């Protein structure tokens, strides 16, 4: 196929159909072309992703309808197990099978919120404020409760008053980075994808 050209790829149009097998065999493409004018093209997508719930990390396919380029907003209409995924082969547990409800849930959390001690109100805060506050509290807890030596005087450097749960849809690299961040702090109470 040394002389492969762009002509390999083509479009079926009024012009190419007249001289096509159809036209040359005496079948007029006219009615088919006229009919096309009343049709409208819709767009759907299938997006491959990982279930966010547990560390089994099942593959999912998310189906959406709608054209991002036009005014209609794309919306996820269905989620099912990815039949090609080696972990779950198209299946999902009942929790995973209900993912669509989580996506469209009215109470789904999409930004950080803060409830002050003693208050009954949640207030929206920025990601920067949230991350600063988490970092400050982690440090305060670690400074107060870090265990350098155990009862026998052996150096242990552990911090067990704080725990951490990391994401299920994480790659090997994210698992590696999680360990690099968490282990040097002395955190023992943590779980992430690298365990599975």
């Amino acid at each position: 196929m040394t002389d492969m050209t762009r002509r390999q790829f083509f479009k079926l149009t009024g012009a190419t159909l007249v001289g096509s097998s159809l036209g040359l065999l005496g079948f007029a493409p006219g009615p088919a072309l006229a009919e096309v004018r009343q049709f409208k093209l819709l767009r759907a997508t299938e997006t491959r992703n990982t279930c966010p719930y547990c560390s089994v990390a099942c593959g999912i396919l998310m189906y959406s309808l709608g054209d991002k380029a036009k005014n209609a907003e794309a919306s996820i209409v269905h989620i099912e197990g990815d039949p090609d995924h080696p972990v779950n082969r198209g299946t999902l547990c009942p929790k995973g099978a209900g993912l669509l409800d989580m996506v469209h849930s009215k109470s789904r959390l999409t930004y950080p919120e803060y409830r002050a001690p003693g208050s009954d109100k949640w207030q929206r805060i920025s990601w920067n404020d949230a991350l600063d506050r988490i970092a400050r509290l982690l440090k305060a807890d670690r400074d107060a409760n870090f265990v350098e030596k155990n009862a026998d005087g052996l150096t242990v450097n552990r911090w067990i008053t704080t725990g951490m749960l990391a994401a299920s849809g994480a790659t090997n690299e994210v698992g590696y980075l999680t360990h690099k961040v968490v282990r040097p702090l002395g955190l023992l109470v943590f779980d992430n994808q690298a365990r599975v």
Partner: protein
Amino acid sequence: MQRVLPSDEIARSVAQPIPRLRLPDRAAVFDRRAARLDRLAPDHALSGYLQLMADVARTQQVLLSALPPPVLDSAELARAAAHRMPVLPAGDHRRHREWQPILAGLCERLAAQEHRPGTVADLLRRVHQIPAPVLDEQVDALLGGRPEHVDPATAPFLMAALQVLWVALAAALDPAAVAPLDVPGVCPVCGSLPVASIVRGDGHRYLHCALCASEWHLVRAKCSHCDAVDGIAYRFIEHGNDGVRAETCEQCRVYRKILLQEKDQHVEAVADDLASLALDVLVGEAGYHRASVNPLLWPAAEG
């Protein structure tokens, strides 16, 4: 669609790998195509053409049934598989002269049917008289990816005859003797391009070979032409048959149709691709090129 699986069924399905290759069913492949075309033809804007192709497919099945089972050279198959090459390459058509008598038989039988319009009858006579060297050159262009040298009038009949032989060859294979290729977009049996893909009832997607009707597995939501996974979308006609969609790729701006058995269990790659010409026109207007031809409908040489 979603149901609770008993635990033994889960264990069974995990133990079974996804079937990589589905070889054609020699006893039914063309009859199924003919039945599908018969079903699609009434009230269709291309009704006459679909009926003609249904007759072609029916005749193909008759000719295939009359063909003795081919004898394959196992050493040759093993060598091709060892190098991850198609085991029955379409480029070898000069070594398989049997397809030419099949073409003659096809034309004779089709011409003998009385309701044929004049243009078709004349053409069938013309195909009959093409000398063998010219036929060989035509087939080089048909199978070698040079559509600009193809005569679109005779091409569907030549392809139909070649299909009969290659289905017979492919059906005689042991699937285990066929190696997966390094390129996922061509047929591992004969090296031809797929006509369309089908998502089977079990959710697995298979590409359907335009020549030998073998089907090979390709993961979903991936461009069957350039392998890209980003920017894949599915286009279909509003209030139309949403079981036939065009899988468009933003990376290479090419599309190939994908048929959903979940929406219509009788979908057949060649027939449904042919009968969804309106989708081709619309997707072409939206700026995408077709990845490969339908073996039964070749566009004008100067497209």
